[in-house]
């Protein structure tokens, strides 16, 4: 099997807070292969964004432990220069809100040039400009040669997200982390942006890590899915299997929240309760208080990921059921 380009091992992120340490990420293992698309799914506060920010060393105030390897480079605890040489050049990132993610006082072309020069200082102004126009073409911005001199406020949200994507691939990275790239956009524009990301992934053999809470986005664009809850991965499956046969009760509940066209439905269902406070996690399975299937034993020990058919699941009931099946 091929070596992963990005590999997280037992990644833990803890924020010191006045209320005690908030354990936002509690031991994540994740491999990303070249050119594949992995989705990380979960509610707000499940630790998905924090995981990715920690990957790039963008959390100066947090305690990060475990390991993040990009090919042979260890990134946890790496010095500033190493991190900077990886950011944007090897692993790049697109943020959620294109309205606030561009520098309002620089034209598109100028900020793209700064991004390119950060990793390729030998480029001349002219090279940067022609490369920027090229990139804008690649992300399907019409009249790229004119738009390059526009300021961000002159562009629509969808356009700005395209510019963000163009900037994030300006230095030909191998891994692109997209943190909820479509959350702030109109539904029609969302589809276009996802399509663009897929096209780029195939053309440039990019590994795509898609952070999202939108399972609709996941279904169309990911190869594998990791479902996160309270700072841990609770289920890891190929995307088909997750939708056809979700194992973890949390994955099942998330899927039930999707409105369906083939069934008459009065009310869109939701998951009762709220995610636990990372500074004050319950003992046992953190999902147990909200879990419709919880047994008394669920509040005793926190389950770990166990292989189950094509998936890996962290649930006492599912893995217990597996043993029962095996015994029968």
């Amino acid at each position, binding site marked *: 099997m091929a070596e992963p380009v990005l590999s997280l091992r037992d990644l833990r992120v803890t924020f010191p807070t006045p209320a005690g340490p908030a354990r936002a990420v509690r031991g994540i293992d994740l491999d990303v292969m070249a050119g594949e698309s992995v989705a990380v799914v979960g509610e707000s506060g499940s630790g998905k964004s924090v995981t990715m*920010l920690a990957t*790039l060393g*963008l959390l100066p105030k947090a305690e990060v432990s475990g390991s993040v390897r990009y090919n042979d480079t260890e990134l946890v605890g790496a010095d*500033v220069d190493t991190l*900077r*040489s*990886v*950011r*944007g*050049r090897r692993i*790049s*990132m697109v*943020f959620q*809100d294109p*309205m*606030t*993610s*561009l*520098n*309002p*006082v*620089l034209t598109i072309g100028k*900020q793209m040039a*700064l*991004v390119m020069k*950060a*990793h390729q200082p030998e480029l001349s102004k002219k090279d940067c400009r022609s490369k920027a126009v090229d990139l804008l073409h690649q992300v399907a911005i019409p009249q790229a040669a004119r738009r390059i001199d526009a*300021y961000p*406020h002159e562009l629509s949200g969808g356009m700005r997200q395209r510019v*963000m994507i163009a*900037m*994030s691939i300006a*230095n030909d990275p191998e891994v692109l982390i997209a943190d909820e790239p479509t959350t702030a956009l109109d539904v029609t524009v969302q589809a276009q942006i996802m399509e663009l990301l897929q096209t780029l992934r195939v053309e440039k053999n990019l590994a795509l890590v898609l952070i999202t809470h939108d399972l609709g986005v996941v279904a169309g664009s990911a190869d594998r899915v990791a479902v996160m809850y309270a700072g841990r991965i609770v289920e890891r499956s190929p995307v088909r299997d997750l939708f056809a046969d979700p194992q973890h009760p949390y994955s099942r509940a998330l899927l039930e929240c999707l409105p369906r066209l083939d069934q008459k439905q009065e009310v869109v269902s939701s998951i009762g309760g709220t995610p636990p406070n990372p500074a004050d996690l319950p003992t046992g399975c953190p999902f147990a208080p909200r879990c419709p299937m919880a047994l008394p034993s669920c509040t005793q020990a926190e389950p770990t990921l166990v292989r189950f058919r094509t998936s890996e699941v962290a649930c006492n009931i599912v893995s217990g059921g597996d043993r029962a099946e095996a015994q029968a």
Partner: protein
Amino acid sequence: MTHVNSATDVIAPPRRLRKGRPEWLRGPALVGVIAIVAWVLVALTVPWWTPYDPLASVGDRLVGPSLKHLMGTDQLGRDVFTRTLWGSRTSLPVAFVVIVSSVILGTLVGAVSGFFGGWIDAVLMRFVDITMAFPPILLAMAITASLGPGVRNALIAMVLVWWPIYARLLRAQVIAVKQREYVESAEAIGVKRFTILRRYVLPMAYTPVLVNATMDFGQVVLLTASLSFIGLGARPPSPEWGAMITEGATQFYSWWIATAPGLAILMVVLAFNYLGDALRDSFDVKAGL
């Protein structure tokens, strides 16, 4: 601040594209700008058109205002109006150098302090605290006195007193701006930290400093005159407003001697306050410190 993100701003044409006079340049601000321009022209050109030498005795002593001597003459028979006009050649350049130096020094310290934080911030801000613990005029007096009276030393003293204001102001802005998402986004994409500070953070943090600097210009003119008034700045016989008021104060019945430079100070200070106020309202800067 927030208007950058608001929906209305996306639709409205950007401010710099509108033609003609800027919106803030009306009423008192316009008066202020006219007064400032007039004084600057005077300062630049006065040697070529005043009929009198500011340092020479050109008439009888202590004569009241007349057509020949618009603001009368002083105890040495020098023309007060001419001397007042010449006074701008000290006050305006001194204030300009003080403000520019203070802004540069304050910017360097404030930007580094706010952007990098940590112990650098702690050390630099303690220097700022120490300076700001004293009333500016007292500290400026003390420094000038210890360096020795004179315009140059007064200028150095004023810079030392003034820069911490801008350092503090800019630091607060930088801390606010560096938490914006586009700064984090630039960092995630590998832009150098220094570039981020220079091209991403400073342009968005600088407005309050420039507005405050405009307003402070008048204050520095006043402080220069104050230092000269108590004999620490410009010395007689040089035509400096503060020094002239000191001379006039001893000639109680020749009211015009102190009145002319007093009016000049009033005009310049008011003009810069008007301008600064308008700029502050226009750029929507929260009240300073």
